[in-house]
Structures are given as structure tokens and as C-alpha cells.
């Protein structure tokens, strides 16, 4: 049977109904749950950007969030480390539980949240400081009193950048190439010893070679961290992630979760018609 016939043979039915909790995806795999997202909706003023997202993210996996532009993937990602707080009009409904604790509880300090849930951005943004100071910034701010040199070296090693920069730690971070800068940003995020690393389209500003290096890096990193990556590059999601969540935009322009499953399953035997259309390039 051809793949197409295979697909046609499977009855395509929606795996979940929006708004109900009966068919919620419980994440894939057998590690601990890190994020338990429950009917999370995000708003900018009166505009709803995300509609009742429900799913779970598990430890030591790479979870990819894919979907067409504008469907709210970045908003969802930023919901995990409360970066949306920086926008005046942003507010949310529902819950995101992090190790069982509601991230949006009134007494939770966003600064503490961000020290445990780090972020790497789309365009590499090293500080105009030396490489050493870039990596040391996070620990210093968090009050780290131990051996900073060791922490910097360890972070740079884990980001697969140490060998390239060990002799020029005092040179500006902005003098590195694009791919190196992004690995520096990863080292910087790692230096605060987070639990989770969020990545917002980390390779979209990089060339293919640098992209592949970062994808390899992600595989190494997942042993020690949990990684959630937003990407519009489907091949990357298929290559690099363990679990994939597919979001799309409804008619009210609010993003909603269509399907979430192991990456293999999403890309070979998706349950939902929309997912299949997106994967095969029919839209988005």
C-alpha cells in the first residue's frame, strides 16, 4: 500500500474536542510531567491569541510546537516563562502548572520563574559585553557565589562552544558569527542552571550548517534539560524533536491545539485532517 492509501485507510477523526477535557493529550513518553497546561487562553487586551490550550510536556524530551504563522506559537512559548508579562495588555485564563505549581498564581515571582525556565530567542542577542561576561550575567544576577570561571566553562562546553572561544573569552560576544552567537546565547541560558530551555525559532536567522549544529546540540542538551522549541520549519521539527504539538488558527484568529503526539506519529500517521494538510504543505 502506498502511504496515501495507508492514510486513506485510517479513519480520520479528530482526536479531541475543543473545550472538553475528556480527550486531552497527556503527552507522550514516561518521564515526569514538567508543564501541565490546562485550558490556557492568552489575550492581548480584548483580542484572544490562544484558545484553551491543553496538553502536557514531559521531562528530558524535545517538544516541538509547529503551525502556520500568526497562530500564537510564540505567545504560547512565552506563556511558559511569563515573558508575556512584559506586554502591557497581555493577560491570560486557565492554568499552566509547572511541577504542580500554578505559574500565574499571584504570589509567584516572574523573575524566579525565568531563572528556572530559560529562553533562547529567534535572533541571537548577545550583550555588548565580553563572552565571559555574557555567560556570567545570569549567575551574577541570581546571586551565584561559587566559582564563576568554572560555571562559565561548563556552560560553554555544554553549548558546544568552549573549544572555539576558550582563548578569547574577553572579546566581545557580538564579534562572533551568527551560529556562534546563538550557541553563546544557549550557553548564557544554561549558565543559570535552568530546568527547562525554551527556544523560539532559534535557527531561523542561521545558515543550514549552523542550524544542524544547533539541532545536534539540542539532542545532547535534552539529557540534562527539558526543551520546548517553536519552529515553522517542519523538517526541523521532524528531525529534531521527540514530541510535536500542532497549533493552528481558527476563524476568530485565536490559536488552538489541533493535535499532539510523538513526532513519528504526527509526521507519518496524523489523526487530524488539518495536521495532514499542514504537514503535506497544503496550507500554512
Amino acid at each position, binding site marked *: 500500500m502506498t502511504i496515501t492509501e495507508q492514510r486513506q485507510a485510517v479513519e480520520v477523526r479528530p482526536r479531541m474536542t475543543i473545550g472538553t477535557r475528556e480527550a486531552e493529550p*497527556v503527552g507522550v513518553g*514516561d518521564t*515526569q*510531567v514538567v508543564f*501541565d497546561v490546562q485550558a490556557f487562553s492568552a489575550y492581548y487586551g480584548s483580542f484572544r491569541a490562544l484558545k484553551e490550550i491543553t496538553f*502536557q510536556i514531559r521531562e528530558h524530551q524535545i517538544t516541538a510546537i509547529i503551525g502556520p504563522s500568526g497562530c500564537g506559537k510564540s505567545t504560547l512559548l512565552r506563556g511558559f516563562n511569563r515573558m508575556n508579562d512584559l506586554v502591557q495588555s497581555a493577560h491570560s485564563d486557565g492554568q499552566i*502548572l*509547572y*511541577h*504542580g*505549581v500554578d*505559574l500565574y*498564581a499571584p*504570589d*509567584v*515571582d516572574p*523573575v*524566579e*520563574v525565568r531563572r*528556572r525556565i530559560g529562553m533562547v530567542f529567534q535572533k541571537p542577542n548577545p550583550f555588548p559585553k565580553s563572552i565571559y561576561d555574557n555567560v556570567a550575567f545570569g549567575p551574577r544576577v541570581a546571586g551565584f557565589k561559587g566559582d564563576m570561571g568554572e560555571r562559565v566553562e561548563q556552560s560553554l562546553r555544554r553549548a558546544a562552544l568552549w573549544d572555539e572561544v576558550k582563548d578569547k573569552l574577553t572579546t566581545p560576544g557580538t564579534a562572533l558569527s551568527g551560529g556562534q552567537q546563538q550557541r553563546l546565547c544557549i550557553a548564557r541560558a544554561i549558565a543559570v542552571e535552568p530546568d527547562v530551555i525554551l527556544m523560539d525559532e532559534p535557527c531561523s536567522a542561521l545558515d543550514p550548517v549552523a542550524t544542524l549544529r544547533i539541532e545536534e546540540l539540542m539532542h545532547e542538551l535534552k539529557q540534562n534539560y527539558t526543551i520546548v522549541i517553536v519552529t515553522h520549519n517542519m523538517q526541523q521539527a521532524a528531525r529534531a524533536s521527540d514530541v510535536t504539538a500542532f497549533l493552528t488558527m481558527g476563524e476568530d484568529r485565536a490559536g488552538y491545539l489541533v493535535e499532539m503526539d510523538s513526532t513519528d506519529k504526527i509526521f507519518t500517521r496524523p489523526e487530524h485532517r488539518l495536521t495532514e494538510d499542514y504537514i503535506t504543505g497544503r496550507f500554512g
Partner: protein
Amino acid sequence: MSATTSPSASDLVALRLRGGGFDWRSYVLHGAMLLAMVLALGILIVLLADVAVRALPVLTQRPIEFLTSDLSSRPARAGIAQGLEGSLLLVLFVAVLAMPIGVGAAVYLEEYARDTRVTRFVRTNIRNLAGVPAIVYGLLGLAVFVTLLGLGKILIVGGLTLAILVLPIVVITTSEALRAVPASIREAALGVGATRWEMVRSHVLPYAAPGILTGTILSLARAFGETAPLLMVGAVAGTFSAHGGLIDQLTGSYTALPTIVFNWVGQPQDEFRSLTAATIVVLVAVILLVNGTAIVLRNRYDRRW
């Protein structure tokens, strides 16, 4: 396949997420910034209030006489009429001279000149001129107009000196206003066959006019308050007799409101304090009025586009 963490671990996480204690350093920084703001605003308020209070005796008892009398060594008779005339004429001079020349120079630099070393030098030179202390312009006026050209210490010389002082500012603000004109407007005009001047006159200048006007008016307000250059070129800091017609005024001794202030500040009698304060009130009131008008104009016309 465990779904959630055990209660005690999540309590631990919650505790850490609630954050450390009191961040005293943020409060210190906030306090320092607020103190700075209070000081800056406070000084302004104290200054205006103090001057206003001191000016009250003169302004309440003899306001009209104060505005229409001539300078006198007797405080009970002294007035600022000559200063008002002088300042008005000086500002008119500056407007008539500095505005066309300044706008013309800016138009040349922005619309006609190619980006060569020469034009870049001219631009840098103008920027430097804007930073030259006002008193040096007074020296220029003294050397060239009073002495070299032998014009003497007359109002025309004062006007020329102030015009030169204000010129770089007019050029800079006009340049900024011209640069803000979108390229599409220029292209549209050139596209229907206009020459460069026709394009500038009919499209660029009207669009940039609010910005140019605002800049010019603000520089006139600046000229209105200048003292040092006038002192250098011989504005009278004492008393002199009133003048007849316009020609006499332009070619004779003169004074201005700021120079009157300077003169009276140096007088020992107490009554002069009140006169000085009253003059300052007039001076500051005019400057505020002019600045305010310029900003209102800019806001009103900006909306049209």
C-alpha cells in the same frame, strides 16, 4: 506513567517560585530617581514662584507705567519700554535674516548637494557652530561689524550678531524637518516632470513647513533671551535717552530685556530687585508663550498629514 510530581516536591518548587525576600536595591534606585525628579521639578517651581513673588510690587502697583516708561536711575520711574522695543526689533531682524538663509542652506544640503567630503565638512562645521558659546558670536560681531566695518554699537549690529548665532540651529532643525519628508512625495513630483526646485517648492517645503516653522520659532525664542553677545557688541547696559523714528532706533544705541535684567541685577538699591523680577516675568512669559505656540502649531499641523 506518573502524571504529576509528589506534593512535597511541588511545594518546594512553589516556595522557590515565590521569590526571595525584599529587593532593597531596587528601592534605592527608585528612590534616587524620584529624588532627582523632585529636585528638578522643585527647583523650577521655586524659581518661578520666587521671581513671581518678588515681581508683585511692581506688577500690581504700576504695571502699565512699567511697560511704557524708559530706563531711569530712579527705580520709581524706571520702565522697560526701550527694552521691549529693542528686543522686538532684534527678533524681527533675526527672523528676516536667519530664516531665509538658514532654510536655504538646509535645502541645499538636503536636496541638492551630493554626499561628498565637502558637504560632510559643511555639515560638521554647522554642528560645531551650534555648540560655540554665545559670547564668541559676540566677539565675532565686535570684530567684524563694530570694528572692521566701523558700524559702531548700533541695533543693526546686534541683530546681525544674533542672526548669525541662531543660523546654525535653524539649519539643523530645518534639515531634520526636510529629512522627515518621505521619498515617495519627492518621487511623485519628479515623476510628473518637475524640476528640483519646483518639487521642493510645491511638495517638500509644504510638507516640512510645520517642522521648519517650529524650529524657527524656537530659535527666535532663544535669541530673545540671549544677553552675552549683545553685551559684547555694545548694547547699552545702563540708561540712554529714548529714540525717535524707526531709523533712529535701528542706527542708534539700544538695549533689550535681558540686558536690562543684567544691568538692574547689579544695582545696589532694593527696589531694583523688584524691577528685575518684574522684567524677568515679562521675559519668561514671552518665551513661554512663543515656545508654547510653536509646540501647539507643530501638533496641529502634524495631524493633517
